[in-house]
Structures are given as structure tokens and as C-alpha cells.
């Protein structure tokens, strides 16, 4: 059964992404696309002629997708949270490498910014893992889901996690890595056709990845987890529709001063 879920993970992510597009359109009082639009887009991308810059560049996108899928699978299988975070970091590095491997200026700037994003959110993710460990006594996802009470003991850490969700799902105010109006999608710019589709699907997986961290805070209660995910989903979209994009340097500054302080303060509270 769990393998079916793992296999369906990109499709699930696609539905979340499609639903988000509808939600965002409604928040802007637009008609918006149908909920299945991401899949229509994928079929369209399949029809396109494949143009690649060079083979490693194209393969890195594929590798990025599969490593990301693997890390999402690891969450579903209930593995060690630290493994999952570092697997995800590895996937991210593959993408950054792909960005640097071509000569496009936009791609290079995109990679620079992806690196800054990794620098910004990765410590918080680790701290979240440490916080969950301190409360539940284990890094295993399956063990974490067996105990509860995270929200009451780690409220500030949860707030810190909330702050990095927009970075991961590329939403305002922290959508610097994509930044359409500035660098036209960043690392994505040199991809087309099938290989772009892998990047497109890895975006769906990012949704699953980051929202499953939110879900962990629900602990043993599935209802609480689902409620948290739904609430955060709505909140992230509301913030997206109420803010402009900040500069990359400002993003790192905000995360390091506010989110880091919240997380460390909370952990110190739990330890003492």
C-alpha cells in the first residue's frame, strides 16, 4: 500500500499545485485554470521537441527529480529525518550544479540564489529535526508519528518552519530563486520539453516534501496533521497574495535573524 502512495506522490503533488493555482486565482478574483491544469501542461510539454544544451545538464534535471522522489519516498517509509534532509540537500545541489553547467547568465544567477536559499532554510530544517527528536526521542519519522504534543512544546519552532515554507514552494515574499520578472525562472531557463517536465514535476514533490514536515507536527493525530497542512496551505497563499518579493540578501537576513532566533530560543526552552 505504501508503495502505491510513493508511486503516486508526483500526481498528488500535481493536484496540490493545481488546487493552489485555483485558490490563488480566486484570491485575485480571477477565473483561473482548471485543477488538472498541471497535468495538461505536462502533456503539452511531452509534445514539444526536446532541445538540450548538453547531456549532463539534461541528466542533472532527471537526477534531481529522482533523488527528490527518493527523499519523499523515505518520508513515506518512515526513515530517519536527518537522512531525508540530507537526501533533499543532495537533490538541491544537483539542481544548482545543473544551473552552473550552462553559460546562461540567468541560469547562473538562479543557481547563486538557489544556493542562498539552501543556506537560508537548511539550518532551520535541521533544527526542526532536532526539536522533534528532543520531544519524541527519535529521528525516525515512524517513531515521531507515534508520539504527540509537538505543537504545545515547539510552537516557536513551528513558526520558524512556517517562515521557510514560502522559500521551498517559491512563493512571495521569498520566491527569489524563481523570480520571473528578474531572472525568468533562474535555473529552469535552459530546459525545454521532456527535461523541463522533470523540473516541473520536482516542483510537485517539493510541495509534498515541505508539507509533510508540517504534517509531522500533528504527531499521532492524523486529523491535527491534516488540519495543520490545510491551515498552512491557506496561510502561505494569503501571504503570497499580500507581499512583494524581497531581495535574496534580505531573505537570508530575515530568516537568520527571526526564524533562527525563534528556533534556537524554543530548543533552549525545551532543553532547560
Amino acid at each position, binding site marked *: 500500500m505504501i508503495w502505491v502512495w510513493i508511486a503516486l506522490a508526483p500526481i498528488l503533488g500535481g493536484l496540490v499545485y493545481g488546487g493552489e493555482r485555483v*485558490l490563488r*486565482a*480566486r*484570491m*485575485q*478574483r*480571477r*477565473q483561473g485554470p482548471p485543477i488538472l491544469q498541471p497535468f495538461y501542461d505536462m502533456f503539452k510539454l511531452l509534445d514539444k521537441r526536446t532541445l538540450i544544451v548538453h547531456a549532463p545538464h539534461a541528466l542533472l534535471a532527471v537526477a534531481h527529480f529522482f533523488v527528490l522522489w527518493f527523499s519523499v519516498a523515505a518520508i513515506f517509509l518512515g526513515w530517519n529525518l536527518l537522512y531525508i534532509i540530507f537526501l533533499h540537500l543532495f537533490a538541491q545541489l544537483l539542481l544548482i550544479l545543473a544551473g552552473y553547467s550552462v553559460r546562461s547568465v540567468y541560469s547562473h544567477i538562479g543557481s547563486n540564489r538557489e544556493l542562498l536559499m539552501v543556506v537560508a532554510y537548511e539550518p532551520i530544517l535541521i533544527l526542526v529535526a532536532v526539536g522533534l527528536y528532543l520531544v519524541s526521542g527519535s529521528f525516525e519519522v515512524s517513531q515521531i508519528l507515534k508520539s504527540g504534543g509537538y505543537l504545545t512544546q515547539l510552537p516557536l519552532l513551528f513558526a520558524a518552519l512556517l517562515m521557510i515554507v514560502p522559500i521551498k514552494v517559491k512563493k512571495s515574499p521569498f520566491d527569489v530563486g524563481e523570480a520571473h520578472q528578474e531572472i525568468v525562472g533562474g535555473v529552469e531557463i535552459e530546459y525545454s520539453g521532456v527535461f523541463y517536465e522533470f523540473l516541473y514535476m520536482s516542483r510537485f514533490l517539493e510541495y509534498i516534501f515541505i508539507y509533510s514536515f508540517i504534517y509531522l507536527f500533528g504527531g499521532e493525530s492524523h486529523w491535527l496533521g491534516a488540519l495543520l497542512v490545510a491551515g498552512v496551505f491557506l496561510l502561505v*497563499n*494569503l*501571504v503570497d*497574495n*499580500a*507581499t512583494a518579493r524581497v531581495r535574496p540578501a534580505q531573505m537570508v537576513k530575515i530568516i537568520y535573524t527571526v526564524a533562527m532566533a525563534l528556533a534556537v530560543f524554543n530548543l533552549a526552552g525545551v532543553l532547560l
Partner: protein
Amino acid sequence: MFKSMLEAFLNLFRPIRTLKYPAEEIVLPSGYRGLIEYGIDACIFCDKCEKVCPPGAILFYQNEDGTKTYRYNPWLCIYCGECVRACPKPEEALWQSETKQLSALKEEGANEGWFVWEEACKQSREAYATAKKSAKIQNKSEE
């Protein structure tokens, strides 16, 4: 920022503002500047509309017997209404309706067909002028 967030949340329950244009027709406001329409019975063939038209969307074909045929290209027209204002008999010979012209199909030859027609009109005038001239000369020589 929180105000905008509240606004975005409330927008979820408000009606959407975009139009489903190709699926549903747009309601044109009254007084829309639409197609130029022509009434052949009232026309006195003064050619004023042809002369003032900025893009040259009205042309008259000169028939050999001296009459003229009106022709109008709705895809070249800019709907400014200069021709109607220039017309000595507006509302009878030439008037602006409120109907909207649809896009041209390839078969309708909005460009190529019109170029051919322009050339034909020009030639018809030249032919008519030379015919008239030669007729005059003939008349004179007969006298």
C-alpha cells in the same frame, strides 16, 4: 500587509472579475463604434468618404457606363467615423452601426483580396479617364 491578507481571504467569497470571453459574448456598450454601413439608394457618388478615409478602407470601382460600385473593407477600417462626418447625406447613405466585425478568415482575403481590388479600382479609373478623353477627342474630330 495584514490588510491585504484579509482582502485576499475575502476575495475567495466575492464574484470573479474576469470574463469568459470566447465562451461568452462581451456586452458592447451602447454607442459602440462598429461597422460602417452603406445605403446605395441615397448615395450620390461624391467620393467624399473615399477621400477622407485615413486607411483607405472605402473604394469606388468605376464602371464603364459611368456608375460606381462601393466597396468597403471592414478589416482595414479604423472605425473613426470620418467618412460619416464627411458624407453629405449621413444616416441615409452612410452610417456607423453598433455591430462588431469578427476577425477575418483566410478565405475572405482581407489583405490579398483587397490589394487586388485596390489595383482593379485604380485601373478602372485610369481606363475610364482615357476612354472619356478619347471619346472627347473623337467628338471633337467628328465636329
